[in-house]
């Protein structure tokens, strides 16, 4: 990037227009502060005793908007002190409205879990709005809310009486004490042992931006900071006079900026560091210089991924048949993208090759009829990462639904537990679901079930045409409490069954960060339950959110057992891809229990390995057993599987030696095509591909077969040549791109086969295979590879 390019990027950034309301609010708050300041200047003797200056003294870096938001929740707090000052000093009537609003809200939202409060561990409780000096009280806010409402000034009162303020203060004190008494009940932190390449200081999760100005909940502090807060509070209780900016000891930057521009050091001494996730100990604040680069994955400690080993090479003679289930999930790619964009290397276990490859849409030929939902496309190319080996691409694409789409009966099962209270969780979820509504038909029905400490129906089955009802149900969701996912699932299925429509797609859509800690928490039990419900025709899809607490393992298991897909939503644009652009594949199944079985011709192939699909392995006998569940495909879904194999004769590319006592070692099968077995009908065949699937409404599987022959062999590189006769046929852009993605994923996993293959090679191949790239997904991948290069030489 040269100077002018950087300049262009940095100068052409488009600044969003100033929001007039935000400006007005800021100006009003500043004005109140200004007047208070002037007043203090004029009556210096009253310092520290007047309620006003005490309140003002608590103005903090987090005052203002957040607190105003919080104010709506009905509790008057530190930052609101500034707002109170407006009432007191300026007597602005506008604040009366705020108060009224606050009082209204306190009486409870549409879903008021009365028993949540008991379940809430103080550490998990979290509310939008940030407390400053009173940080400790946050934990007690739940208990305190009704208290606050008792003392809320009557709506419309232009002036808060000192008695009122004192009452609020008193309640605040009580709340704080209560919180401190309750003590530290934070859940233990099950930290997975970091692997040797995973180590580094902790870092807060990346911030998040959602577009339409929705309320963005803030990450919560955890109660472990309570002692610090106590201290902070004590400090804040001290007479306010030396809280005036600049006079605090340690205020830096003398001179130019003057004492007015409060320096960072002051804030750290007074305010506790809120931390979004439970941490075993207060975090050392690392000096900013150490921030860049951040070469390692930073263990947030609680993301969980299934354990598996990469597939190794198998000797074709010993195990000539390979069987696996299809997988159309894409969660892994989104997670990897998120980590890389945040400057971290994703943990190897989070990288599932098949999900990375299947994230992209490939243009495989599609059959016309619904009777045969897909046809296989097979391509053989030389392996770019191991000389002498070859890759076998198997691709299928489901037909697209044209014409009238079936109706949908959807039940959204939403996690609103405390762990969902982050910008990239509940708020993103609400917006994602609004997007999904756009892809539904007006007479489709949706219902909403939420669960936290308890489960409840927030929206009974409602037609999509009644959009405002659905929106208001969504908008009223708030996060807090523990996570009884099990109870919620039962309730959701009940609703779906009540409203069951034989002609429609009946589906529960579970949106969660996967942190089930109350109710049916037993994984096997949950899986069985979901599998049993699948039989009744209600399917389950999973949308994963958030990071730091993400239980990928369980999400995968649930979706697999519920005939659904698991997608990971890390941004609104990802939500758009999954729920809008690919709504029909997410919603409308065209085939279920799709299984692949490949029998390798031992006369041609010495060794093979399946690239990815480790978590989708099936036994050989499972293939013909229709009772064994496997992955499903929605309309327009593509599935790509890649085998790497060593042809017979390529001894140097072998991973193991032949057995001395084997009947006929592969090394001695001198059988290049058409020689010793010229008479064999299979002489030209590498392998035989079988695919089994069921139509969504059927219980008996159907079979598609296709031999893989020498004619499927193409050149991986794009070949530019004239109409010369010997010009080798070149593979499609899709093959090149899928190969690049598979290569990238393996490099990220640190696989041994990839030592010679570098990210630059991935880049070159991906560029060649970029093709049309209508939505820019492939371009995004290419840029991800560039980002990953920062880690390559470490």
């Amino acid at each position, binding site marked *: *990037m040269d100077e002018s390019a*950087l300049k262009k*990027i*940095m*100068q*052409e*950034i488009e*600044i*969003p227009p100033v*929001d007039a309301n*935000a400006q007005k609010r*800021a*100006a009003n708050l*500043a*004005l109140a*502060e*200004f*007047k*208070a300041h002037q007043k203090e200047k004029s009556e210096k003797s009253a310092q520290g005793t007047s309620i006003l200056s005490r309140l003002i003294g608590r103005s903090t*870096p*987090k005052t*203002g908007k957040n607190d105003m938001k919080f104010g709506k929740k009905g509790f008057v707090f530190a930052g609101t002190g500034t707002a109170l000052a407006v009432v007191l000093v300026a007597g602005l009537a506008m604040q009366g409205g705020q108060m009224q609003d606050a009082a209204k809200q306190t009486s409870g939202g549409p879903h008021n879990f009365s028993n949540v409060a008991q379940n809430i561990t103080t550490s998990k409780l979290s509310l939008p709005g*940030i407390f400053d000096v009173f940080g400790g009280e946050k934990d007690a806010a739940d208990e305190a809310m009704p208290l606050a409402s008792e003392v809320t000034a009557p709506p419309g009162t232009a002036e808060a009486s000192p008695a009122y303020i004192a009452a609020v203060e008193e309640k605040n004190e009580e709340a704080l004490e209560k919180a401190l008494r309750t003590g530290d009940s934070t859940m233990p932190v099950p930290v997975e042992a970091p692997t040797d390449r995973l180590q580094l200081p902790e870092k*807060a999760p*990346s911030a*998040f*931006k*959602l*577009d339409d*100005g929705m309320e*963005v909940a803030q*990450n919560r502090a955890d109660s472990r900071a309570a002692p610090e807060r106590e201290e902070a509070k004590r400090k804040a209780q001290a007479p306010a006079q030396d809280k005036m*900016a600049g006079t605090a000891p340690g205020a830096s*930057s003398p001179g*130019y*900026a*003057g004492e*007015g*521009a*409060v320096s*960072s050091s002051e804030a750290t001494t007074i*305010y506790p*560091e809120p*931390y979004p996730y439970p941490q075993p100990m207060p975090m050392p*604040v690392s000096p900013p*210089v150490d921030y*860049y*680069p951040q070469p390692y994955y930073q263990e947030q400690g609680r993301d969980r991924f299934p354990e598996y080993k990469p597939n190794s090479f198998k000797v074709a003679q010993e195990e000539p048949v390979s069987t696996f289930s299809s997988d159309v999930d894409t969660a892994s790619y989104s997670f990897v993208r998120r980590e890389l*964009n945040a400057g971290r290397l994703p943990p190897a276990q989070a990288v599932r090759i098949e999900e990375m490859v299947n994230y992209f849409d490939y243009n495989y030929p599609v059959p016309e009829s619904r009777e045969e939902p897909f046809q296989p496309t097979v391509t053989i190319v030389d392996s770019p990462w191991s000389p002498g080996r070859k890759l076998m691409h198997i691709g299928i694409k489901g037909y697209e639904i044209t014409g009238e789409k079936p109706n949908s009966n959807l039940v959204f099962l939403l996690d609103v537990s405390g762990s969902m209270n982050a910008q990239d969780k509940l708020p993103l979820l609400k917006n994602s679901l609004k997007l999904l509504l756009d892809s539904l038909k007006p007479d489709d029905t949706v219902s909403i079930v939420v669960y936290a400490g308890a489960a409840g129906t927030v929206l009974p089955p409602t037609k999509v045409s009644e959009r405002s009802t659905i929106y208001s149900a969504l908008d009223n969701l708030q996060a807090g409490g523990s996570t009884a996912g099990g109870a919620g699932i039962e309730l959701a299925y009940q609703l779906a069954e009540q409203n069951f429509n034989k002609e429609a797609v009946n589906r529960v859509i579970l949106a969660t960060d996967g942190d089930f800690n109350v109710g049916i928490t037993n994984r096997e039990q949950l899986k069985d339950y979901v599998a049993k419900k699948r039989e009744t025709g209600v399917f389950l899809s999973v949308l994963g959110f958030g990071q730091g607490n993400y239980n990928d393992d369980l999400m995968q298991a649930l979706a697999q057992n519920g005939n659904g897909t698991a997608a990971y939503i890390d*941004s609104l*644009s990802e939500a758009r891809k999954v729920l809008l652009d690919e709504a029909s594949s997410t919603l409308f199944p065209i085939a279920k229990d799709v299984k692949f079985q490949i029998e390798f011709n031992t006369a041609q192939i010495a060794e093979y390995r399946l690239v990815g699909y480790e978590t989708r392995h099936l036994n050989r006998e499972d293939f013909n057993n229709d009772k064994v569940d496997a992955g499903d495909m929605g309309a327009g879904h593509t599935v790509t599987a890649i085998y790497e194999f060593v042809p017979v004769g390529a001894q140097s590319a072998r991973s193991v030696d032949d057995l001395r006592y084997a009947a006929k070692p592969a090394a001695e099968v001198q059988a290049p095509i058409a020689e010793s077995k010229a008479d064999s009908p299979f002489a030209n065949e590498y392998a035989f591909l079988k695919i089994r699937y069921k139509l969504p409404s059927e219980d008996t599987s159907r079979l598609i077969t296709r031999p893989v022959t020498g004619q499927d062999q193409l050149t991986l590189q794009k070949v530019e040549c004239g109409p010369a006769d010997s010009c080798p046929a070149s593979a499609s852009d899709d093959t090149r791109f899928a190969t690049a993605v598979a290569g990238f994923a393996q490099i990220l996993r640190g696989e041994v086969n990839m030592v010679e293959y570098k990210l*630059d090679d991935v*880049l070159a191949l991906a*560029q060649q295979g970029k093709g049309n790239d209508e939505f*820019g997904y492939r*371009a*995004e991948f290419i*840029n991800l590879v*560039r*980002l990953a290069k920062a880690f390559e030489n470490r």
Partner: protein
Amino acid sequence: MDSGFWMPDAQDTELIKRAQAGDAAAFEALVNDYYGIMFKMAFKWCGDRTAAEDITQEACIKLARGLDSFRHDSAFTSWLYRLVINTAKDWFKSQNRHPGAGIEQAEHVAAPEASPDDIILMKQVWAQIQILPEGEKEALILVVSEGLSHKEAALILEVKESTVSWRIHEARKKLESLFGKEKKYG
């Protein structure tokens, strides 16, 4: 301040003086006049509209108490930059939030006519800028994005001019290592 860069015009100076003397109306006008500039700076710092609004609001509140310390020996805008940058740092510290990633999601970031490639690159470059060390980030924003000279930036950041140059050099080196060989694979 020898160059006298961005000395506020007489009207603004007048306004500031009146506000410093305790004139509330003047202060309000001042805040409204400079809100946009402060917001723009905050947005560049964090790449997130909501966060930028919070930071700007906080900076306005700080201005109420801090204005007295403005001594008219520099441009008011540069003094404001300093205020906004400090507020932003405090804000992120208090949120224990790391700047960045916001811009990844920001929909306003690129000009509407830009190609998808450009938009993605722009987002990624900004995301990387967000996670630069603070010193490098602020130097880069002031010099490359705001178009100030190294000297002007040095005054605002209260460091030596050579420090600014060095930080910009370092920042560009890092960005180049990430996005450098742009055309090589094409």
